[in-house]
């Protein structure tokens, strides 16, 4: 396989950390493995924020690789790109390229305890398709939410802490969580995951969608609610979105990029026989194409966050 193995991703992240030591923070250490966050831009707490998260599910390595590709591009541009410096003087970028390094090293969806980090938040009493939307039967089965009443897993808790301390203070922020494994097209999902009812910030999402259509007219993304098909209990972004709304009047738009990995399997059916092949591009040219395909989107979201006053509905 051409894609980065879990260890290779760790090495790439360590290289980036060495290249910009002032920008890196260790969020938490799980066993001996650190989870890093990179923070670039102004330290002004009220500046808009773009948060990029990868590797929540250990099988979905391509999410971590896209986050690393974006981070690598940023770090190399820091040396020469004055426009980037101007943007970073007005906003902040936070990248957590690999939230679940243990799961990625073991080639499993959940973390070291078998818990699906995206179903590990305190669940809302309503919503959740049986089993698929979260189960408490066994960590050996997928979509395990963890024991009822247990604290959040260290990785999920670290992400919540990061968002609460570094993102909630911003008047406007966009979070992009990179996933793969569902559908033939790339989707941008917005909350809620626990219900099909519309989120309160739907007008802002609609405005962002129009802006995306106008700015990148030939983009490949389908913008839809996470709970379009099935509902999820304990979704981390639902939890953070609700917490954000409870804290103050600012706006946090959390988006999940779900890369349509079925298209990769359709083009190369043999890769469907491996668990990693069902979630990641295997052919080298397709892998490279995926890494460059989403950079314009992340760049667009950065600009949209920095200039939110120009397009956000009143």
């Amino acid at each position, binding site marked *: 396989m051409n894609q980065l193995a879990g260890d290779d991703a760790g090495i790439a992240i360590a290289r980036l950390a060495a290249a910009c030591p002032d920008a890196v923070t260790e969020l938490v250490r799980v066993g001996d493995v650190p989870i890093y966050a990179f923070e670039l831009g102004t330290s002004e707490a009220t500046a808009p924020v773009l948060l990029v998260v990868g590797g929540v599910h250990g099988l979905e390595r391509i999410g971590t690789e896209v986050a690393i590709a974006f981070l690598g591009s940023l770090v190399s541009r820091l040396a020469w790109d004055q426009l980037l410096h101007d943007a970073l003087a007005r906003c902040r970028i936070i990248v957590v390229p690999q939230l679940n390094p243990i799961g990625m090293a073991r080639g499993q969806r959940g973390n070291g305890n078998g818990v699906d980090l995206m179903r590990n938040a305190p669940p809302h*009493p*309503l*919503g*959740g398709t049986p089993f698929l*939307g979260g189960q408490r039967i066994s960590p050996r089965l997928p979509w395990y939410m963890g024991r009822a009443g247990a604290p959040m897993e260290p990785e999920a808790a670290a992400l919540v802490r990061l968002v609460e301390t570094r993102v909630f203070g911003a008047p406007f922020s966009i979070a992009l969580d990179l996933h793969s494994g569902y559908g033939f097209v790339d989707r941008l999902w917005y909350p809620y995951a626990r*219900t*099909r009812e519309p989120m309160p910030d739907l007008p802002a999402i609609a405005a962002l969608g129009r802006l995306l259509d106008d700015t990148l007219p030939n983009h490949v993304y389908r913008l839809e609610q996470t709970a379009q098909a099935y*509902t999820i209990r304990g979704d981390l972004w639902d939890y953070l979105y609700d917490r954000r709304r409870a804290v103050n009047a600012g706006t946090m738009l959390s988006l999940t990029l779900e890369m349509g990995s079925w298209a990769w399997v359709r083009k190369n059916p043999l890769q469907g026989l491996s668990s990693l092949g069902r979630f990641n591009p295997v052919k080298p040219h397709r892998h490279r194409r995926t890494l460059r395909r989403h950079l314009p989107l992340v760049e667009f979201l950065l600009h949209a966050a920095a200039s939110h006053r120009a397009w956000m509905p009143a």
Partner: protein
Amino acid sequence: MIGRLARFALLALDARAVPRGAPTSRAIAARWIAANALAAGGVQVAFEGPVPRGPRVFALRAPSFAAAIAAVPVLVDADTLPRGWRLALCALGLPLLDRTPELALAQGASVLSAGGSAACALTVELESEGYRVRVGPPDRILVA
């Protein structure tokens, strides 16, 4: 069409997993299921004014039961419904009134009745993208 049917099938699965027990929990579950059914069909529901507090009997003569149930947690008195509606709501897994309205009210749940008179009415108006629901006296009931 197939996608929409699949969404409703998954919603029916979700509906059967929604916790229910006491009448108030059943009413909250009914609201969640109805709201999800409308959202799955791309229909928006707006509620105007404060959500009424405390148990009461609502009357509804408009045909859009789902919009009324999606707006306020209520248990539908199935005996007052046309047979087709009863079957549709059962297929969706929507909890219905399973005791007398008086007992449900005493236990804190509101009841929605399709016929008869009540002190309170859920007025449902059809708009371009969905429904607008508001609480009003019975003489303000509009047919959607």
